[in-house]
């Protein structure tokens, strides 16, 4: 499969001079919002920038949109460099977290805005805006004011308003951040389907790892202005490359490698390495020890019943804490292990990641 690159970021940096003390600002007297970002986002891809607040994901998106200029580096859309191209001439459109609908205009006029300012003929505006409203199932609401709509409806209008311009890339800046959980889940599936249907490249920004895993073709995990890992949801979840990524996405147990007799690959020193494994990879051990399993002795510290799952908080003999998650099969809730119980745990070695960063 030849995958065409829709958006490319080359050594992109966004930094601010600061008068703050050097120690606080780092070595160069600058604060880095984004640093050394290199990304190739493929055409038709649902690409997510995932990270905690302040990690630089929104700044990256805003640089692609043209609201901010990179201090260093280049951004390309379909091979064209974007330096010096103002936001209104870029083939991208943005869906904002706060919807940013024009309050003085009707829903229809909001959607028609981009076509009107480009001087598209009136008939075509009516047709295309109508289609865009239909796409987000808001055809009935064209005459309403944005303030008469619920948050979810407003964001649908925001999406229609952006898509009506047929952008090469749609940028979504935490579009569901202000919606309640149930609605957010609905919208996630809807947006994902819409993206598949339209084949437009989506760049999606979120701090919600579950949202990122649900929707994305590929995810870039960001922290402190840098991209730590780029990969499919499966890569990101099952093969995290950094301790931060392993911790941020899902739940992870970490044990310092030096505390256990665990065979490390050549060149990895035991005092820097950390063993990481998911709570669902931890099992209560029955029967004999296996060479391909890591055995651990532990004492149950706490048991948490969360409906679908049972979570055990366990103290290892080596002095660290491990979480075990088991699916709550019917009736399992009845014979839950009590705090203080001594147990033997095992983790399959293929489920253990050795992280050094």
């Amino acid at each position, binding site marked *: 499969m030849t995958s065409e690159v829709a958006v490319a970021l080359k050594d992109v940096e966004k930094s601010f001079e600061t008068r703050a003390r050097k120690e606080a600002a780092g070595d160069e007297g600058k604060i880095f919002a984004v640093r050394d970002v290199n990304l190739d986002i493929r055409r038709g891809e649902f690409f997510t920038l995932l990270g905690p607040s302040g990690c630089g994901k929104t700044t990256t998106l805003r640089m692609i*949109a*043209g*609201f901010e200029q990179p201090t260093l580096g280049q951004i390309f859309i379909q091979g064209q460099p974007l330096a010096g191209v*103002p*936001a*209104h*001439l870029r083939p*991208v*459109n*943005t869906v*904002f977290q*706060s919807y*940013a*609908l*024009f*309050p*003085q205009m009707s829903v229809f006029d909001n959607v028609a*805005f*981009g076509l*009107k*300012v*480009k001087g598209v003929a009136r008939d075509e505006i009516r047709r295309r805006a109508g289609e865009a409203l239909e796409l987000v199932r808001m055809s009935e609401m064209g005459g309403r*004011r944005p*303030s008469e709509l619920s948050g979810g409806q407003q964001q649908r209008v925001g999406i229609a*308003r*952006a898509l009506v*311009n047929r952008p090469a890339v749609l940028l979504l800046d935490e579009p569901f951040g202000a919606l309640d959980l149930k609605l957010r889940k609905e919208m996630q599936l809807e947006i994902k389907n819409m993206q598949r249907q339209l084949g437009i490249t989506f760049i999606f920004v979120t701090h919600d790892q579950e949202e990122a895993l649900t929707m994305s073709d590929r995810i870039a995990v960001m922290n402190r202005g840098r991209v730590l890992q780029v990969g499919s949801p499966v890569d990101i979840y099952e093969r995290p490359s950094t301790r931060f990524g392993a911790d941020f996405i899902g739940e992870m147990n970490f044990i310092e490698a030096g505390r256990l007799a665990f065979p490390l690959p050549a060149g990895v020193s035991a005092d820097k390495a950390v063993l990481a494994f998911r709570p669902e990879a931890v099992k209560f051990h029955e029967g004999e020890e296996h060479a391909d399993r890591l055995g651990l002795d532990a004492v149950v510290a706490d048991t948490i019943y969360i409906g679908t799952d049972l979570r055990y908080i366990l103290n290892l003999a080596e002095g660290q804490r491990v979480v075990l998650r088991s699916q709550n099969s019917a009736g399992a809730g009845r014979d839950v292990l009590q705090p203080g119980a001594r147990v033997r745990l095992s983790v399959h070695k293929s489920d253990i990641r050795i992280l050094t960063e």
Partner: protein
Amino acid sequence: MRWLGRNRLLTLLMVTPSIVIVGVFLLVPLLIVVAYSFAERDSYGGVVPAFTFNNYAQLLDPIYHPIMWGSLELAAINTLLALAIGYPIAYFIAFRAGRWAPLLLVLILVPFWINFLIRISAWIVLLGRGGLINATLQAFGIIDEPVRMLGTYGAVQVGLLYAFLPSAVLPIYAALQPINRTLLEAAHDLGANPLQSFLRVTLPLSLSGVMAAVLFVFVPSMGVFAIPVLLGGGKEIIIGNLIVQLFLEFRNIPLGAAVSVILLLASSLGILLYMRALRKIELARS
């Protein structure tokens, strides 16, 4: 029930001072002026109680038309100039001034701390024959003879503009400042160039401020009298001057009162129309 009665009594007791003050110092003088406008004058300049429309009928005399139209024109031009200059100032403070915005706002308010008459008198110093402007122009050899500025229509216009410019800047600023900046980014993002995003987003959203500015400038511009006297040499008679003249010089208090009532009605009509238009905007927005 008894408690409620006591409560109401207490409320009444508390608002009484306000009612008395507003009544005695605002409503009663207003009613006196209205009553005067229907009265007659005696030959000594006194007011004779009567009920006649003669004063109003007298105002239909063509002699008053130029004053009425002149005032209207002066106020209208002043309003347009105040908007044309005030809007960019307000826009700059709201969108571009950044951390200097509070200082600029204070600078706009500073003149209000000085008495109005003194501020207008300062313009005499600026515009006079040997005033600062003439002296400077002469010093640079741009003019040979001092230009006559004081006592002209232009001087009145400049004085009016100076006096009411802050009244235009402040309400427009108040309307511009809260505009969500993300809306401007959205307009930009959707392909609007800076002019388009101003005309389609910023301007419509600041319209309530523009209308307030019109009201705050136009209505008092009609009634002003010190500026034409001090800067226009009293020759450019506008409604404000007319009222003062009728009361103090011609001692025709009933006629002066009639002019005042007409000015009051015209202003009230303006406010009414403004409120209506504002409600329409608010309705459209919500």
